[in-house]
């Protein structure tokens, strides 16, 4: 696999306030993104995710560090020609219609008229906005802006797509649709750089992640490598037994009507619990083994950071 994005030792400090006070946002970030993967860039609010993206895309200038896209310096037009970007909370020219806006973006890539005429309706269809083609962007909802933002990011058929919180502001159906679009892009061989703090989305679609806390990458790697497959405990919901019957076997979690939920920390104890419920003529309603989740890892990292 070839490296499409390489960030080495990136530092960025902002000066804030009337009497400028320095705030170091990025403190020596290094990582790389390989071709064809969905790379999740995670971090709590204010960790420096958007600042990293802005440095990569030339919106701000890092104090120190190197950013290479497809082996080219990140500010070179050759690098930018192969990149698409959906900003966080996108806002575009509200006096343009969706089709006019995409036509304007296509103009910045010198796309020929015939290509534009084929591509713009196709992209509008892809993001589910074909009916809003002639609607001014000022009349767009937050979710619709997110969708047109994705369409403009794909106007040049980029090989590397940067998405900053792409699923924010979308309803559950919209999120599912957008996740599907991202997976379609991956199938088409594109590399996706996904910035988010919504862990379920990242866990569902990302191949590799980097966790950013306080301006430093604390963990980076394949999801499978970072999260242990080992069962941490098993959550059992049962009825027909009292908490007192389970002493020494399970740890109570909650009680609702006749159902109780317990945690069992040993697989051998799970078998014994099942036998006990069977003997006491009780019922097991659910039995869910819990492995480590990205959320567990994330919370642990944030605490460490």
């Amino acid at each position, binding site marked *: 696999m070839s490296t499409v994005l390489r960030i080495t030792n990136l530092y960025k400090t902002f000066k804030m306030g009337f009497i400028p006070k320095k705030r170091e946002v990025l403190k020596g970030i290094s990582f790389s993104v390989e071709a064809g993967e969905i790379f999740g860039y995670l971090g709590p609010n204010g960790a420096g995710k958007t600042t990293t993206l802005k440095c990569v*895309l030339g919106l701000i200038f890092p104090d120190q560090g190197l950013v290479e896209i497809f082996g080219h310096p990140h500010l070179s*037009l050759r690098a*930018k020609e192969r990149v698409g*970007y959906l900003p966080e*909370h996108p806002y575009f*020219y509200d006096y343009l219609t969706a089709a006019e806006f995409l036509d304007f973006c296509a*103009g910045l890539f010198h796309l020929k008229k015939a290509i534009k005429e084929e591509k713009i309706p196709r992209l509008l269809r892809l993001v589910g906005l074909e009916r809003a083609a002639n609607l001014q962007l000022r009349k767009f909802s937050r979710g619709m802006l997110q969708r047109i933002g994705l369409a*403009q*990011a794909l106007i040049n058929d980029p090989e590397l797509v*940067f998405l900053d919180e792409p699923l924010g502001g979308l309803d559950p159906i919209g999120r599912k649709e957008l996740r599907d679009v991202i997976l379609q892009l991956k199938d088409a061989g594109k590399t996706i750089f996904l910035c988010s703090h919504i862990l379920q989305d990242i866990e569902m679609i990302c191949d590799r992640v980097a966790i950013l806390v306080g301006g430093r990458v604390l963990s980076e790697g394949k999801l499978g490598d970072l999260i242990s497959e080992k069962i941490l405990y098993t959550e059992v919901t049962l009825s027909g037994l009292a908490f007192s019957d389970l002493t020494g076997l399970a740890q109570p979690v909650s009680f609702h009507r006749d159902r109780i939920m317990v945690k069992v920390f040993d697989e051998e104890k799970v078998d014994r619990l099942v036998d006990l419920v069977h003997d006491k003529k009780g019922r097991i309603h659910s039995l869910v083994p819990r492995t480590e989740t990205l959320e567990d890892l994330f919370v642990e990292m944030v605490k460490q950071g």
Partner: protein
Amino acid sequence: MKIKAIALNTFKEAIRDRVLYLLFFFAAVAVIFSRLLAILTVGDRVKIIKDVGLASINLFGVLMAVLIGTGLVYKEIDKKTIYALISKPIHRHEFLVGKFFGLVLTLFVMTTLMSLIFLIIVFLHTFKIELNLLLAILFIFIELVLLTAVAILFSCFSTPILSSLFSLSFYLIGHFSWGFQTLLQRTKSAALRLFIQALSIVLPDLESFNFKTEVVHGLTVLPRFYLFSALYGIVYTLFILMLAILIFKKRDFV
């Protein structure tokens, strides 16, 4: 090509701005009003119409250039529309030059429309199409182009209200720059004289573009004066644009 795309988009933005139409409406009213003013005046009525008409085109053109120009770049940064743009394969200077030409195109269309109304009003009075008036309007337009560059320069680092104040101050200073010569004559301190001389070189002499009196009164002006003024306008505009580009190139879009 990229500059053209940005310029056309800026033109679309400007012509969909209500402020432009408001100013155009008042400019048209002022030009038409000049006829009424002429009726109330003792003396050469045609000259009054021409004077007031040209002054109106000038004043409202300046307001258009400043009020729209100062918001152009600031709005892009404030509303973050610039994010999607700068991440595309365009140089920052292409963005700024595109914005500049977009507003120049808007001003060209507006000045043409105002001039048309003005020429019709003059025609109704004299029954002659006085194309020589276009010469005065051409130099008003050159001044507007220069002010557009100034408005964009301030817009690169300041809010629209402050930028408008700066730009209008620039306009006023530019029209009173002859004051520097008077000041020079009365100043004895060598250091102060040097400072005033430096100021008079850096600050513009916008009176160089004012040929209204000469055109209205039919006075002869040597062609080299026109040529010098046009060149001065172009060079000064380029200088301001370069300054704006230098500032814009280093800006962080936070």
